[in-house]
Structure formats: C-alpha cells, structure tokens
C-alpha cells in the first residue's frame, strides 16, 4: 500500500475510532476493499512463491468511505480505540458473536461502531438507532447457548419433564 493510501487510512481510523497509533509497516490492499497486515518477511517471501492465496491478517475494510475493523483489527488497536465504541456485557457478547443484533441503552450517532466486552475486542457492527448489527463472518458465528448449565431446580422450574 503506498504512502498516500496509508495516510488516508490513518486519517479515517483517527476520525472514526480516535486511533492515533501508527499502522504496522506492511499493509496489503486485497480484494473487496480489504486491507491486510503482514510481517515484512511474509510479504517479501510471498513475492517469490506461486499459487499465493493470501498474505497476512485481514484487519480492516473500507465501506462507503468508513473503515470497518475486523475482529483481529479491533484486537490490534483494542486500547487505542477512543470513540464510537460500545461496551457489552458477557451475555450481549454471546449474542454479538452469534451475529444477533444487540440493543443498546442509547442511540449511536455513527454508522459503524466497534464493540468491546471487558478485555475482549469483538469487531465492528452497523448501528441503526439504538441497535447494532454485528459483522461476524458466517464461519465464525457461535450458536447461542445459555451462559451456565441450568441447575436442577432451574430446569424443574422451567417445566422440563421427567427431570428428577
């Protein structure tokens, strides 16, 4: 990625998420507006190989002029994200990772927001009013499960038959 595109991406990240830190040295523009981070050795090695499918890690995609961070992108910049970030509870993070929309207590002004849950960085989602629709790739979604195994009285109270 050339210097001008890099500067532009840094500017967009600062504007959208308040990220001030410098981007890693090797950035690669791949298909569908996706940007990947790689080690310089990986990039150099890839140039001498055949049948290259991908290099490095997908971290951000530019959608309608706004940067949308992948889960690894938010992990990379986790502590540097200062704005347009929502804090989720553990239950909300389970819903988020199963790609279910998450209801927030307040409206968000930005179209895209990043999500955190304690120390976990969960990627980005599209905000619409007080709801956020997470961008979780299909292969990465979890099927929803209760956080804890229900206890015997809870299962009995839930009307589970033949439960002693």
């Amino acid at each position, binding site marked *: 990625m050339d210097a001008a595109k890099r500067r532009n991406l840094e500017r967009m990240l600062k504007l959208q998420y308040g990220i001030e830190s410098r981007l890693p040295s090797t950035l690669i523009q791949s298909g569908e507006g996706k940007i990947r981070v790689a*080690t310089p050795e990986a990039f150099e090695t890839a140039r001498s*190989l055949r049948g290259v499918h991908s290099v490095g890690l*997908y971290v951000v995609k530019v959608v309608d002029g706004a940067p949308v961070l992948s889960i690894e992108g938010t992990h990379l910049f986790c502590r540097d994200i200062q704005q347009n970030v929502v804090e989720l509870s553990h239950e909300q993070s389970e819903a988020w990772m199963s790609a279910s929309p998450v209801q927030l207590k307040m409206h968000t002004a930005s179209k895209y927001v990043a999500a955190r849950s304690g120390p976990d960085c969960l990627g980005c989602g599209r905000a619409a009013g007080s709801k956020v629709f997470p961008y979780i790739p299909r292969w990465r979604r979890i099927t929803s499960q209760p956080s804890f195994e229900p206890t015997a009285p809870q299962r009995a109270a839930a009307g589970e038959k033949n439960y002693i």
Partner: protein
Amino acid sequence: MAKPRLSEELREDLGLLLPNESDRLLECCSRPLRESIRVNTLKIDKDSLVSRLTTRGWMLTPVPWCDYACWVEGSSRDIGKTVEHALGYYYMQGAVSLVPVEALDPQPGEKVLDICAAPGSKTTQMGQKVRNTGVIVANDSDLKRIRALSSNTQRCGLINCVITRVDGRRFPMWAGNMFDCVLVDAPCTATGIIRKSWAAASNWSRRLARRISMLQRSLLRAGFDCLKPGGEVVYATCSLSPEENEETVNQLLQARPKAELLDLKLQGIRTRPGVTEWRGSKFDSNMAKTIRIYPHDNDAEGFFIAKVAKAN
C-alpha cells in the same frame, strides 16, 4: 461401546507391531478420545483462559508434554461454541497432534514451511511458537481445505502467514533451499486416530497404505529439498503402519545423502522407537531415532514422528 470392525490385514499388522498388546490398543481405541485445547498465547495467556473457562463449568488439566495445552472435561456444553473460541483464544486440537511442532521447535524470526497445512492446527501452533515473527508458508492443494486453513489463521491472528494453494510436490521448483524448517504432516491412512473414525480401520489395506506412501515419499522429498543447508524437517503422520512411516523416511535417507536422522527429545509423553525392520525389509540403523506414539500409551491419538536435518 461395542468393539468396531477392523480389517484383517490391519489386525495382522498390529499383532506384528505390538505382540501381546494389540488388544489393549483396540480396547483403548473403543473409548472416545479425550478433548483437549491449545491456548493461543498470541491472544491470551494460559492462566486467564483457564480461569475464564473454569468459571463456566469446565475442568482443565494440563497436558504433560505441552505447557500451553489442556485436557477439557466436566461440562455438557460444546467447548467449540464459546465466545473465547470464536475470538481465537484457543484451538481445539488433539493432545498428541501438538507433538510434531514441539519436535520441530521453530524459533522466532525463522522461515517455516508447512507443506500440507490444512486445516491449520499445526500452522497456528507454529505461529505462536515463532511469536508472529518471520514467515510461515502454509500450503495445501485442496481449495475447500484452504478455506478452513484461511479461517483458522485469521481466527488465531497470524500476521506472518502466507497461504498458498499448489501441489506440495512441486514446491522445490521455486522454493528450493529457502526454509529454516519444514513440517511435512502428510496425508495418511489415519490408523492412529481410529477413535475419531472407525472407517479408517475397517477400510484399511496394505495396498492402500502402499499407494498413499508414494505420495508421502514425494512430499517428504519436496519438503527436504526446500530446506536450507543446516535446516530441519519433521515428518509426521497419524498412521501406525511402517509402510507410511519408517519406509518413507528410509526412502528419503537413500535418495538424499545429505539427510541425517536426529534424536527426538520429548518430555512428559510415552514414546517408543521406530521399527528398524518390517516384513523382511531392513531399514537404516538410525531409524530407532524416530518415534512411535501408540494410543494406549497416553490415552490419546497415535502418531509417528521423524526429524531429519540437511547437512551443510
């Protein structure tokens, strides 16, 4: 669990390999495989993950031969369906399948080739061993499997990985003498992991093992040819048949005079030396430096591992 069907040829070979012990091996294989996870230290430290999973009802006990892996038990929930798994904090990986990378022991900054990489368990394990530095070239020839490889390297956060899709046998044509270390985790008849699927045991034949060993020999030669002088290759299969293991390594030693078998020093796991003779064929005297890991020795999977250096 009812004792599953085993092909007659495999029963005969196991009897030859393990006189008086094959029943113990089969009894062990009739039990389900214990689940284990590898902590992805690129994203989280082991103590934090263990604490998080323990509070949710799982019991984790350390795997003795790998300090960043745990056996998992104690909850009916699927360990593959947690937020932590989706975030790439851990990888579900058989405990013995961690050993080939431990044997190769790639170091930070090195140039590493995984010639049969999909679905990426060992690639991502190597990624954390080299701490996301240098480069790991992960190759596979099958597009479907490449997708799984790509997903797993992304989930585990590898920035030093180049994924290629070519026939691994052709790799030396453009990458000869290029790598510090190479892993050849070759396709095999999978008789060491029949606890996962008994189809491998009921369909096994010597003919099938011979046929697949032709591919294994070519892949091992290709992996060796990609090594820099002084580099090291680990050859591993989850098969127990000598045709796919010692015979394959022996063929490399004959074809490449610069190939030297190395000792494997592993702690916490019960291993046995490779066989030096099989059905009338005698192998290189150093073949006892290779290791066999039988399922009933560690209540886990079965593997064969050999480490070969390329002399300067």
